[in-house]
């Protein structure tokens, strides 16, 4: 079976009569970045919280780094790093004091903390803020600090729950560069995200919809599988300087399900009777036929079609 850092088997979580996660079965290879996608309320955070031992599952089993998340809950904690969805460092402590605390929590001596932190601190660029109280740091620096604290003890498996939510694109890219670098050193990342361009950087993806894994595999495989879940759809991209006008006009066409602006173009999800020329016709001369191309569905297109 190769080396799987995380394996779940029919992992399920009920809250009263609501099923937050329904029979999740996935295997995540060591040294890979696994992205768990899905709309709000689809069960991503619940999954991460179960895998980190914060929530007991209602049914099913899972292992992290070969250890059972229920029976070896405490042992699992030695081998994982966790970055919560919201910033959860101590705001009244300085960045360095937070690093020192989390290092000691994992049994590192002050010397070891200094040694291990130095590289991460340098790499993330947070060194100039080490003596700043963390509530004064911007969101991006808070995230970098949370990441340093999560990986300080060199865990083989790292869980990141929406690590870039509310972060500017440049910081987001920086953080992802870090995740990819660390994955190349053999760490396994389990990341939940809404951001589909981030999902494209994952080695494997799982797509959760209302607690159920509806697709999983490489980003391409997930895209293809998700297309299969939405038969009778075609996707188009329209290049135009008048993004708002064209998007509004396209949304008004009877065969168009959805029109959005993404990546400097208007993206259209339409029924299968739609063609480039019908779109051009419908847009009544606003756009030249040459500026309309039929594309593969992006994850963004597919994501928007699912409803929580």
């Amino acid at each position, binding site marked *: 079976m190769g080396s799987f850092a995380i394996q779940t088997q029919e992992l399920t979580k009920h809250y009263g009569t609501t099923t937050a996660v329904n029979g999740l079965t996935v295997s995540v290879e060591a040294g890979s970045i696994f992205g768990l996608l899905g709309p709000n309320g689809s069960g991503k955070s619940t999954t991460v919280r179960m895998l*980190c031992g*914060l929530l007991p599952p209602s049914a099913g089993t899972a292992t992290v780094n070969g250890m059972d998340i229920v029976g070896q809950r405490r042992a699992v904690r030695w081998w994982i790093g966790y970055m919560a969805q*919201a910033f959860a460092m101590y705001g009244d402590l300085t960045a360095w004091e937070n690093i020192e605390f989390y290092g000691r*929590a994992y049994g590192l001596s002050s010397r070891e903390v200094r040694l291990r932190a130095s590289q991460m601190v340098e790499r993330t660029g947070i060194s100039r803020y080490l003596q700043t109280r963390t509530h004064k740091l911007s969101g991006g620096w808070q995230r970098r600090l949370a990441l340093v604290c999560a990986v300080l003890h060199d865990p083989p498996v790292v869980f990141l729950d929406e690590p870039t939510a509310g972060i500017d694109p440049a910081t987001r890219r920086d953080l992802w560069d870090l995740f990819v670098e660390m994955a190349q050193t053999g760490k396994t990342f389990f990341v939940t995200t809404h951001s589909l361009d981030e999902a494209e950087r994952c080695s494997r993806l799982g797509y959760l919809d209302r607690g159920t894994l509806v697709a999983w595999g490489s980003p391409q495989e997930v895209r293809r599988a998700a297309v299969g879940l939405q038969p009778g759809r075609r996707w188009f991209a329209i290049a135009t300087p008048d993004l708002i006008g064209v998007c509004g006009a396209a949304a008004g066409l009877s065969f168009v399900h959805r029109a959005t602006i993404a990546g400097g173009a208007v993206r259209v999800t339409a029924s299968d009777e739609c063609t480039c020329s019908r779109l051009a016709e419908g847009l009544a001369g606003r756009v030249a036929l040459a500026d309309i191309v039929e594309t593969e569905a992006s994850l963004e297109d597919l994501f928007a079609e699912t409803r929580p």
Partner: protein
Amino acid sequence: MTRRPPASPLHGLGAVLYKEVRHLVREPTTLAMVIILPLMQLVIYGYAINLHVQHVPTVYYSESGEPLSQHDIQSLEASGDFRIVGRVTSRAALMHALVANTAQIGFVVPQGYATDMTLGIPVRVPVYIDGSDLNVAQLAHFGASQVALALEHRYGAVRTPPALTVDPIILFNPGLRTPVFLLPALIGLVIQNIGIVLVTLSIIGERERGTLEQVLVTPIGAPALLLGKLIPYAVVVFGDLLGVLALMRYLFGVPIAGNVGLLLFLGAGFLVTSLGLGLLISTYARSQHQAAIIAAFFLLTSFLLSGVFFDINLMPPIMQAVSHLLPLTYFIQVLRGIVNRGAGLADLWLPAAATFGLAAFVLAWATLRFARLTAKGCA
């Protein structure tokens, strides 16, 4: 339509009212607490608090060795002010009963008093009064003459000048000063309050900020987490205890009659209880809101029912039972015993044992609840 900025300072009142009402109805538990607790409190405290001092536990020492007759005792108890709880066999034992707080009044029946009174020879009865309880002391001071009167009636010796005179001797607080009575109890109260508030806010704050969850993912176990949180607070609150004791001694001039080391030792036990109570409240409250309501209810109940101001012996039996569940009740007994009466561990073994017993109980209960909540992912 042009929209103008609102001129009225009350602009937006409707929106804020709407929002606040929604907040209130959104949390039915909190709303129920807000409505029911004041009603409960009024009923409980209304029944519990009685300012009319009665049935003050009283012992006597008969120099002749002969006990008072049933009839004598009935005469003494007729007013309802005193309750004879026993006879002691020496003056030292009488003093000891007062120090140990088994009685708050003790009087000496002089040898041959009945004969002397019959013969018209003046008899003096020393009445020792626990001055550390101002309510009792004031009653006893003025009411001690009733002892004389009762005995005079008994022997038909009512005359002017009276054949029997009482010598009230106020012990422990001869000046009947309020700080002597109140400060030891207030020390217990403030130490309890600060302990509860510190821990409750700290734990609920961590839970609401998400830092508790982040810590629970680390290998730090629940007991280590709790101890690590409580020990620094315990040190701070112990510092508070030293501070308030020093203020009592040097600012208010209330001397500590007993052993300071014993007081600090038992105080350490009590502060563990108060920190444990804070922890316990934080495991039951779902928000700072609820925690504040629960803590306020508990603190007011402690204030009124644990004997800070109001005599527990005057409360209805059910309220007495409640007061005996409150850790502060026992610590106030310890404080008044050591500070005012110079009591030792032998005199205070019961409140001392209760202080440590409750500390262990509260801490164990809170730790188990906390560990259970963290295991269920509810912390």
